[in-house]
């Protein structure tokens, strides 16, 4: 367990924020997650790393959970506070040999965009498209950071996105070429449904291609 100093909190919506911490000597593979909590506290939660492998800071994207304990406390942390970081953990990662050869489709819902943001920032040269499912446009967290044409926003509760409906509806209406490498991150139901749709479209998914968010 390492102690990391908070540099800043960046509020993206009234309930979603990014904590930027000093990176120190922490290393990780893009797509992995950490557990985070206040120094000395036993309450910890898992968060995928939002920043790039190459950034000289460490960032996580957090949505405040209404009845949550840690996400509420973390939102109140200030620059200069110390947080305990454990990890990195997880096997949700890109195959090194595929990065400059394949076309990728990253499918995320809500804050499940976090490791995808890290993928895109770590490997900007990669041939990729992001499909991000949210309820309202406000939840298109920092969409301006993705180059034009790389990011498709699906909004289910309003018509302000690039597509009105769920990501799974989008996939049904817009079949994906079977040589695309797909990564799915978000809630269990989306992954379960998208998995089926993609398999029917001829796409093979392995265990490293999905990350469930709760």
């Amino acid at each position, binding site marked *: 367990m390492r102690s990391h100093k908070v540099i800043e909190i960046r509020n993206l919506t009234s309930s979603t924020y990014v904590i930027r911490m000093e990176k120190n000597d922490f290393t990780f593979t893009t797509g992995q997650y950490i557990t985070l909590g206040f120094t000395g506290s*036993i309450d910890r939660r*898992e968060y995928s790393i939002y920043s790039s492998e190459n950034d000289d800071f460490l960032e996580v994207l957090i949505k405040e959970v209404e009845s949550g304990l840690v996400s509420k406390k973390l939102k109140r942390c200030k620059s200069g506070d110390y947080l305990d970081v454990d990890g990195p*953990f*997880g*096997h949700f990662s890109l195959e090194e040999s595929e990065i400059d050869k394949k076309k990728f489709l990253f499918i995320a819902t809500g804050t499940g965009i976090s490791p995808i943001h890290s993928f895109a920032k770590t490997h900007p040269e990669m041939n990729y498209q992001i499909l991000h499912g949210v309820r309202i446009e406000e939840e298109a967290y920092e969409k301006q950071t993705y180059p034009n044409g790389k990011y498709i926003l699906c909004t289910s509760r309003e018509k302000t996105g690039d597509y009105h409906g769920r990501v799974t509806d989008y996939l049904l209406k817009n079949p994906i070429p079977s040589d695309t490498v797909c990564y799915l991150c978000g809630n*269990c*139901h989306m*992954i*379960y449904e998208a*998995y089926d749709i993609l398999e029917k479209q001829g796409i093979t998914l392995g*265990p*490293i291609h*999905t990350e*469930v968010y*709760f």
Partner: protein
Amino acid sequence: MKKVAFKTLGCRLNQYETDALASQFQDKGYKLVQFDEAADVYVINSCTVTHQSDHKSRNFINQANRRNKDSVLVVTGCMANNAKEELENREEINYVVENDQKTSVFSLVDAHFKGEIVHPSKLNTDLFSYGATDKGFHTRSMIKIQDGCDNFCTFCIIPSVRGRAASRPIQDILKNIRDVISQGAKEIVITGVNIGRYDFEGYKFDDLIEQILDLDGDFRLRISSIEPDGFGAKFLGLLNHPKMTPHLHLCLQSGSESVLLQMRRMYTVKRFKEIVQVIRAKNPDFNITSDIIIGFPDESEEDFSATCDVIKELNFGHVHTFKYSVRKGTRAERMPNQIDERIKTNRSEILRDLSEETKLNYRKSFIGYYQSVLVEKIDGEIAGGYGEHYIPVQFTGKEIQKNHFYQVKITGIENGSDPILIGELV
């Protein structure tokens, strides 16, 4: 001569570690006695994977204390990590030793009798420095290749109590196996927390297994419990090696895709079935045993039914069922829709009946065929042991020796929850 008694709960890794500790105590002049006898030292190698294992561990602590209040009582294993404070507050326990210091149990006890105090910083924390297991409780020789787990399944406390994944150097493993073979071991059992994730300086699990199978000697190799995500085609190819036993304990946990996702398992039911099909295509009677968790949060009747269907379809040789129990600090602890205990009990009974039926059918299929039995027990002229498929076999014969292979023709089967095959010596 001082007497020492052990009680081991839980996994094969704990069994291996107890075997090594028991051998070390005997090498240092202690007499090994049964746990229900009076002893000077009791060592409880605990487990904390479910509520039930915590309960059993506490029960054995009480038993040891009742048997000899003046004994040195050592509690180690996963519960020692998970409930350290609670155990340290119990006066009857002399030492609570966490997993990473388990190799130091003997030196702690030895120092205790010499009136010395060992500073915790002086304790050995090498996860792989256990000695020989030749005076342990098993005929089969267990070999530890790995410890810890990085998978962080949402129900599982083990990564918190066993720590991050660590792999033992490949040369140490091969030397260990050569040594035990030269001392007479006939069956090598690979153990660890998540053995499929073995990774030492570029050598993966299948590379290690390939090198073990290439070793000289009259031995057979058994893979113990393995996760379905930890291997690929190369390992599946090695399953047909003549030294490899046709048995895998492949942990399924649920037959519902949705539950597996919420458990954060690294495979799908579909992938699991593919693995079984690949294995059985080459060896139709290959024994696949498994674990199932019943009543994971939000497990619906439909999910449960899917699990029952998979058990029927895959013809498992044995299914070990656990009722899900909340483990503090895991992700599943905070999941909504925890399942009522009565529903879990009801589903457990259904699954147990199904599992016993499947097991009986599987074992009956060996009648008329042959097994190579490694004898572990002899009672007069009755010998017992396990065949290569890891099914218990009993037969009669004169001058049968333990730790020897015997060809046995299976002629019948006993009834019961763990039906033993009955055979005749060939």
